[in-house]
């Protein structure tokens, strides 16, 4: 999803990580981790995708970083349970689960970097994506990174940790309810007075960004990475 719909986020992530001295590698064979299938009840398909994903990453080493809490949470929390204890696949899943990290986790907890030298003189509100916040318990890391950005003013967002209504298959199974939830979220963003809302989850980002466009709002939705890449070469 990321590479086709949000290629800029990925490019900026690569450039930023390299600037911080990280050597990046992109396993050719990777496609999707399987979460959309598994979470829609198609567990057999989800498991097949997981096997492919694991194969794509099996010969790599080091951390596996993604700009999505949702994908990371899925690999970390779901992969091991998909395969019987003691199987080769289970062992592989456990090993890979120990290597995946969401982007902000990797920066703050592994690289121990909160200031990447970015500058972004704008009023910024922060949406808390469900799978990042509740699924991976990543709450403080994105904020630490944002606080270190020059000129950035963090604005309070009402109901910041309430779901934006995307929810994968939910958004198309119950589009009217999804729309109502998204509009509630967009409404909160607009009244916050922010110029930019940080949405560090591709699913939520596409949902909220689209909602803001539809509402003809001047507020921009950006991934954390896009903000950290702003005038970052200081």
């Amino acid at each position: 999803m990321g590479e086709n719909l949000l290629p800029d986020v990925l490019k900026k992530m690569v450039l930023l990580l390299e600037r911080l001295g990280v050597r990046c590698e992109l396993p050719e064979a990777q496609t999707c981790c399987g979460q959309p299938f598994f979470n829609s009840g198609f567990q057999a398909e989800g498991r097949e995708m997981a096997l492919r994903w694991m194969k794509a990453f099996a010969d790599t080493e080091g951390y596996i970083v993604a700009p999505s809490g949702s994908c990371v949470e899925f690999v970390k929390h779901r992969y091991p349970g998909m395969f019987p204890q003691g199987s080769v696949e289970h062992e592989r899943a456990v090993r890979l689960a120990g290597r995946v990290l969401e982007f902000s986790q990797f920066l703050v907890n592994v690289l121990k970097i909160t200031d990447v030298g970015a500058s972004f003189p704008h009023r910024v509100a922060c949406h808390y994506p469900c799978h990042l916040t509740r699924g991976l318990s990543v709450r403080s890391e994105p904020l630490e990174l944002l606080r270190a950005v020059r000129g950035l003013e963090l604005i309070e967002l009402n109901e910041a940790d309430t779901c934006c209504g995307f929810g994968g298959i939910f958004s198309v199974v119950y589009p009217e309810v999804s729309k109502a939830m998204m509009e509630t979220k967009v409404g909160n963003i607009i009244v916050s007075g922010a110029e930019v809302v940080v949405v560090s989850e591709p699913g939520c980002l596409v949902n909220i960004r689209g909602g803001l466009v539809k509402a003809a709002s001047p507020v921009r939705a950006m991934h954390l990475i896009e903000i950290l890449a702003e005038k970052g070469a200081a």
Partner: protein
Amino acid sequence: MEKTARIDFRENARNASPAVVAATQKNTGTALKKRAAVVAEFGEARWQELRKAGHEIRLHALTHLDRYLAMVEEKVIAAGGHVHWARDAEEARKIVLKLAAEHGVQSIVKVKSMVSEEIDLNPALEARGIRAYETDLGEFIVQLAGQRPSHITSPALHMTKEEVAALFCQKLGIDACPIPEELTEHARLRLRPEFLAAGMGISGGNFLVAETGTLVIVTNEGNGRLATSLPPVHVAVVGIEKVIPDWESAAVMLKLLARSVSGSKITAYNTFITGVREGGPKEFHLVLLDNGRSRILADKVAREALLCIRCGACMNTCPIYNQVGGYAYGAVYQGPIGSMLTPLLMGTKLAGGLPFASTLCGACAELCPVMIPIPEILLHLRKRFVEGDSFETPSVPGALKAMAKMGRIVLGSPALYRLGARLGRIFQSPLRSGDWLPSLPPPLNRWTMARPFPAFQGDFRGWWKNRQAAVKPMEGKTHG
């Protein structure tokens, strides 16, 4: 719960009344604020410990249900009560009707009970010419309005005080103002003679304490105590999962329940009934209801739904419940707990859409006082709907299955996947407006009816490859 029509959550949600949704949001918001305050006062760390204790108590009780139920039966009989076992709703109704007939009962006062809703008790009583009066204020209101509860602890949560006042004016023929205290007084005056006249009191039960065979009922209005004390016969219909081992467990559970329901440290009235007592009803009957619970118990993943103590916190916090109101769930239990229990009780053929009425955001599981892994159980039921399992055969529509298969084939092959992305970039051009595709043909319009779809963008992999090709010769050979 004995519905035969499929529950269409999408259609129900579309038809949700804006007034119901507005009142629901207002009232759940108030409940959540009170809950948060009382939990903060209790201390977050202590609260988490208490939740863990609550989870363990309930899980232990469920795991040893056979032993604890036998204990309840023995103790209740020893205390002069009667115990009846009801396999399903029909058996439970028959037991109650038979008792009512034996005692020549013409009117009944009832304590708020979700199990009574589950077994459709009131219509069965009315059919025999027995008048059943709901005595909980919220239940009294929805009964008067000819409705069903839209929330498991606040049945009339979907109504404003103005609507209640209008209802009282119309149905009670009085001049009622939209002031909660006054409305309560009207209900009190109306119900008092019914308490005195009733030949039977019917309740559910919040817990059954196995070590003494004690029925625990909590209410905030005192109606529970009155309805189980004044009438000559008390019948309690309780789900078999409500058993807890002992009084130490009860102390934990009552703390969790009061805070989660209404943000109180303790519920106003805690009524403990052990068989027949002096000055109380002459007869006490406990009807233990299975109605599908033992089947749920056999399901290793879903059984934790039976830990539920019916506090309603999951509904209050659920962003979906708050957008649609309780009626959209088309069943007795609503919100996240309903999205688990309804398909478990009715089957996914009829209620398979409900586990999908969730974004898996996890807000419910975060508040659940007994730590039910709600998203986990919803995923389990989605799988049941799609793939089937040892409990049910699949009932997913064929078109959806075909789409998933195709998606798996495309995403399962890097070459096809890249081809798909390239085709997407080509075919989107007539639909494209800037960075967006504002509207797409069915079934993709399910996305664009809410918001535009982002256009397929430039090729990240191409960018990556070009960079690698440019960088590699300078770096020399690097390996993966």
